[in-house]
């Protein structure tokens, strides 16, 4: 077969050359981190399940998603299914998420939670659904069956929404039908994102990045002009240099 005919077949996705990335028909939701966008097969979070395997909350796993969620929130809604803690409204609003289109589902049985997730994904009114497996577990160690995951993936595809599933690290050895599987771990240099399963690509890729927004970096590196430990005044006053209000509770 001549090269041009073979290339044409490859382009029409009729033939896949192993080792070459399969071009995805639908572009994914851009993550706003260029290194991660390049590593993901669809150029962003796909309209399918992305599994994020992590053992502890607070290492930046949500900040990795927040820029993409802010983009989604502009015209569609977001549903959180059984998050481990309560979302703190000022932080989410500051990240650019429209709070009128954010719904949070509290602890519910796995069957109900998965049915609601499927309903939200399929409806088309939702751009992203975040599911925490730990919140759905009735007994520790209970996992979402693969059949249910397949249904969620089909629902995400039909509703053109991204399903992001947070699971424990030990699930990495269990097979799963998710399109993308990522392991997250905190290192000294930043958050290490290991993509060990990607639909249409082979091999594992590791990306290290800093998920927190630039404003938080500034906040962490901020040092006031005067050392605060000598003055019991509020921080605002120290920045503005105005006289204190009589709001001292003592």
């Amino acid at each position, binding site marked *: 077969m001549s090269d041009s005919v073979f290339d044409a077949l490859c382009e029409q996705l009729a033939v896949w050359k192993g080792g070459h990335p399969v071009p995805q028909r639908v572009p994914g939701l851009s993550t706003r981190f260029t290194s991660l966008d390049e590593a993901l097969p669809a150029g962003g979070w796909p309209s399918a399940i992305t599994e994020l395997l992590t053992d*502890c*909350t*607070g*290492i*930046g796993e*949500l*900040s990795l998603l*927040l820029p993409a969620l802010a983009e989604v929130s502009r*015209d*569609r*809604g977001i549903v959180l299914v059984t*998050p481990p*803690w*309560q*979302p*703190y*409204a*000022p*932080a*989410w609003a*500051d*990240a650019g998420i429209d*709070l*009128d*289109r*954010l*719904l*949070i*589902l*509290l602890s*519910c049985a796995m069957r*109900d939670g998965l*049915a609601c997730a499927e*309903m*939200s994904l399929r*409806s*088309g*009114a*939702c751009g992203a659904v975040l599911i925490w497996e730990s919140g759905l577990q009735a007994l520790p160690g209970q996992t979402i069956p693969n059949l249910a995951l397949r249904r969620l993936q089909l629902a995400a595809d039909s509703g053109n929404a991204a399903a992001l599933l947070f699971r424990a690290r030990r699930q990495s050895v269990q097979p799963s039908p998710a399109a993308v599987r990522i392991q997250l*771990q*905190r*290192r000294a240099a930043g958050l290490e994102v290991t993509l060990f399963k990607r639909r249409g690509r082979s091999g594992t890729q590791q990306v290290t990045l800093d998920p*927190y927004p630039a*404003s*938080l970096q*500034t*906040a*962490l590196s*901020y*040092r*006031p002009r005067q050392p*605060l430990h000598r003055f019991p*005044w*509020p*921080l*605002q006053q120290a*920045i503005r240099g105005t006289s204190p209000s009589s*709001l001292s*509770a*003592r």
Partner: protein
Amino acid sequence: MLWIAMLLPELPLQVSHRGLLPDLPLVVCDHQTQRPLVLCANPLARNAGIVPGMAVAAARALVDGLIVQEQDPAREQAALHALAGWALQFTPTVTLEPDGVLLEVQPSLRLFGGLARLGKRLEQGAAQLGFAVSISVAPTPLAARLFALARLSQPALRGSTALPRLAAKLAPLPLALFDWLPETVATLAQLGVTTIGQLRDLPRDGVIHRFGRQPLDDLDRADGSVPDPRVTFAPPPRFYSRIELAAELDRLDWVLLPVQQLLAELEGYLRARQHGTQALRLVFEQGRDRQFTVDIALGAPGCRADDFMRLVRERLDRCVLEAPVQAIALAVDALQPYVPPNRLLVADAASQSLAWRQLCDRLTARLPAEQVYRLTVGNDHRPERASCRHTDLQATTRQRVSVPVSDIDVLSASRPTWLLPSPRPLPVAGGQPQFGGHLTLLTEPERIEAGWWDDDPVSRDYYIARNPRGQLCWVYRDHAAGHWYLHGLFG
């Protein structure tokens, strides 16, 4: 004037048949205690050999598992009222007959696309309600009723729309269609007068002298030579409809059929009044003093039966039936003005928000109350009050998040994405708090002192800290006793 007659043949049978699964034999009997006789039988019973007029005991002997219902005039009246209330969405002039309804549709023809389309819609709509109707049209109400009755035996008969030709069309109809005394009809038959045309040919004085005024009065009213004013039906202020099931249903998915019929009635009633409703109550009666209630709430007033049905299905999915259902009732108390949403060709913001509202309704129907909520930013420095939960999912006012002063961008950025439900006390080792290891404080303290004006004063110094696992935490030191607490996590 153009009248459409919708008649329900075998009304007692149709009323008992609502909500019944189609493969059960059913007869309706009269009220005699000694020897009840069969009044009507459904096709399955008739195939087994039961004829109207035979004794119920004989019928029971013929068919195994026969369902026998007593005729209930109150239920029949309620069914006619339900049909009339539903028919009000097509015209404001609806009259009740003993076995059907009459609609005056001349002003509504253009809106509903012509007589043929309207007739088809009426037939299909009545089928959705669980009724099989015979429909016919005529310029006068009595003639419409006669044509509809005649159609039961001659389905090919067509009504008439023009008044001048009405007399000619009425001529071949039999006199038995009128509700005169049987003696009158028998005597006229002996005289050789069996059709309306033949009666009209007889001399008027003679007929009046022999049979009274009623026969000629009826003929004149049917012709249109004498006016025939009717009392219009007025809908009740509250919607309440009840279907008593002929056979008990012990599975929830069988119950969906009568619920669908009730919701179709409700849609007709709401459309007639141009109102919608935000709250429905479905009561499933399971016997004496035993029932269970399903309350459905919508975020915005709705009137479409499909939307209600979707929510009812979600709610019934999580219910477990403890006893068989004997009757189902639907009640709606409060009505709100209904504005149908504009449907545009291209999906845009309006249709997106409609889809979002429908999703919110379905989620609240699916889960128990208080399990779905949305957030708003509260106007308070205390972190536990700065994030408020609301279980009413429709935001009525667009919330303006207060724009932070530019100097304090540092502060608004240093808020965690997760907040603990209540602050967790941290053990202290070597003067430093511990959470998953030794916490390293990364920022200078941020002091929050607020709430001295109500019973919940807080006085805390907040820090952002990191632990060896890599978690970024929001911890604070309380001024009251100097204890350390964990309040949030930067996810």
